[in-house]
């Protein structure tokens, strides 16, 4: 199995990846019927997704609402049962683990949630919240637990004096730090950040992002950073995966992706990044027509063909695979490359 992996076409890096996802699928059944429910179809929230993440790097996952980013994050941790595929973390396939074994493996991967008001129990003290993972996996005495909680609080720059306080006494940013401390309690190798800053004030976002960056340096963490905030993803990521309708359409190094996206969808998405300069208008922005199709009935062939200005006959028939390109990008498009100029040409026609 290992040999197969090392020769996989998606491997763009010489060393062994810490996360290796192959053909991951998550379909949600659509049920109909009043008394007797019949499965009439499925929403393909994550459909045949494969990627690698190297230890210590941050993989940004971007895409518009409903493209399956969050489902991907939750399926990676098996908070949703995958419909198919492999999730190898440090060589262990989480997708096929039995429940008891999975519980043990949960130590190595943790999640930071989007909404710090919903993701921590309002009835527990900060100490109990951060100590929860330690209690679940046992092994520490009462005093050791408290020391560890205090240590974690200092790590996320919270004053350990507040450990007997309740969540409602903290601001959104502080609550998110509590969530981060909880996620780090078991020394995970991998942390999935599911839009960890989108519920926070802009002034707090930078603080939390910088904290995440520092923690990564200090603890050698690997992040999968899910977000729709393109500038934040650009700031924190090593590589970025662009998702559209349950599939990854392009993966590339951060700089290279922003400089020259290969896939027409990436191009359109990244052109929407705001420029914080009132004098420069965003004249290069590409406005796509229409809405994403229904994920229960994706279009045949390339999923982007309904909105892609370059779609030709082959795109309607054949679904493009993620394939390596000359500049190191992996892109799922039948065309070798499209440029901004091409787009402009198409739209002016």
């Amino acid at each position, binding site marked *: 199995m290992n040999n197969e992996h090392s020769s996989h076409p998606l491997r763009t890096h010489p060393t062994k990846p810490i996360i290796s996802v192959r053909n991951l699928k998550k379909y949600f059944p659509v049920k109909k019927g009043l008394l007797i429910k019949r499965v009439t179809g499925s929403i393909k929230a994550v459909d045949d997704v494969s990627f690698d993440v190297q230890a210590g790097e941050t993989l940004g996952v971007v895409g518009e609402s409903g493209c399956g980013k969050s489902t991907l994050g939750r399926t990676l941790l098996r908070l949703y049962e995958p419909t198919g595929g492999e999730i190898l973390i440090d060589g262990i396939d989480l997708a096929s683990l039995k429940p008891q074994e999975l519980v043990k493996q949960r130590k190595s991967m943790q999640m930071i949630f989007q909404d710090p008001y919903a993701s921590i129990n309002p009835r527990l003290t900060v100490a109990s919240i951060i100590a929860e993972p330690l209690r679940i996996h046992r092994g520490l005495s009462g005093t050791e637990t408290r020391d560890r909680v205090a240590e974690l609080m200092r790590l996320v720059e919270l004053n350990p004096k507040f*450990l007997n306080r*309740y969540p409602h006494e903290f601001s959104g940013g502080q609550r998110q730090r509590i969530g981060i401390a909880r996620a780090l309690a078991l020394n995970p190798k991998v942390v999935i950040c599911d839009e960890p800053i989108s519920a926070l004030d802009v002034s707090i976002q930078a603080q939390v992002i910088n904290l995440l960056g520092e923690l990564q340096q200090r603890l*050698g963490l690997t992040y999968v950073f899910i977000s729709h905030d393109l500038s934040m993803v650009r700031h924190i990521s090593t590589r970025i995966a662009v998702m559209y309708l349950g599939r990854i359409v392009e993966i590339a190094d951060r700089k290279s992706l922003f400089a020259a996206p290969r896939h027409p969808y990436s191009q359109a998405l990244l052109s929407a990044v705001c420029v914080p300069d009132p004098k420069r208008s965003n004249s290069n922005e590409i406005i796509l027509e229409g809405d994403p199709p229904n994920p229960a009935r994706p279009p045949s062939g390339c999923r982007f063909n309904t909105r892609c200005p370059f779609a030709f006959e082959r795109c309607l028939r054949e679904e493009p695979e993620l394939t390596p390109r000359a500049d190191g990008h992996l892109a799922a498009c039948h065309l070798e490359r499209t440029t901004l100029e091409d787009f402009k040409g198409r739209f002016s026609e």
Partner: protein
Amino acid sequence: MSQVGPTLSLPVVDQTEVHARTTEFQIIRRNFVKNRGAIAGLAIILALVFTAIFADVLAPYDPIEQSRAFMEPPSAAHLFGTDALGRDLLSRVIYGARVSLAVGLGAVLIALLIGMFVGLMGGYFGGRVDAFVVMVIDTFMSFPGLLVAMVIAAMLGSSLPVVMLAIGIGEFTLFARLVRSVVYTERERDFVLASRSLGASSFHILITHIIPNILPSLIVLVTLSIGNAILSAAALGFLGLGAQPPTPEWGNLVNIGQEYMREAPWLVWFPGLAIVATVLGANMLGDGLRDALDPKHRR
């Protein structure tokens, strides 16, 4: 890429600050004690329980001994007056606390236990378990609680534990429905998902995250149900399935007193007051407990 693995070796300072802590229980107790209503409620309930336990000592007369003083209004000799058979009402109310409190608290406890188990199962596990639970609840709800209680009491005889069980089963649907609906929303919360991602078992999630969050609504329902249970016990007695005369019991005393409402209204007042005191005390106690358990109500 930096080194992989745990490198958490920060200096641990302020040991005293971290360890000089108050336990959760101490915080709850402190907040409970500060709440005057809660303390008053606790005092009322304790006083009633005390009365029930020491009824032999406290009652001035034998509760079933009849005398020639028929339907006398309250006086120095008979503080609560006497009933149609010349029995001392105060003594009857004092002895009545035994049956009534036992039935009130016992039946609610049984209803709570059954309702919570059924509701937790349905709400937490969902799917087929839930469909089954809903079916059970609906079946029981299609009969009046009293009818269910009557059937059970008729089958098993009319001893005190049977009456408690009968009323408990007759009323459990209220608890089951409440618990089920609250659990249904609570289990979808992000902190439950977070707990699962930490590797928590269903049992851990139920105990740490779900039950504490359904307690406030449960406490209110419990306190309101106690009065109901006492009255149901009276109805059962009236139908010949509960405590039988001459055993004194509050609901029964009210029931019999009703006939003499014009001539001797105290026959209703005093046992009625005892029921009101129980419900009020339980309510105040419950509200205090609910607030003490809620972090947002604390100062």
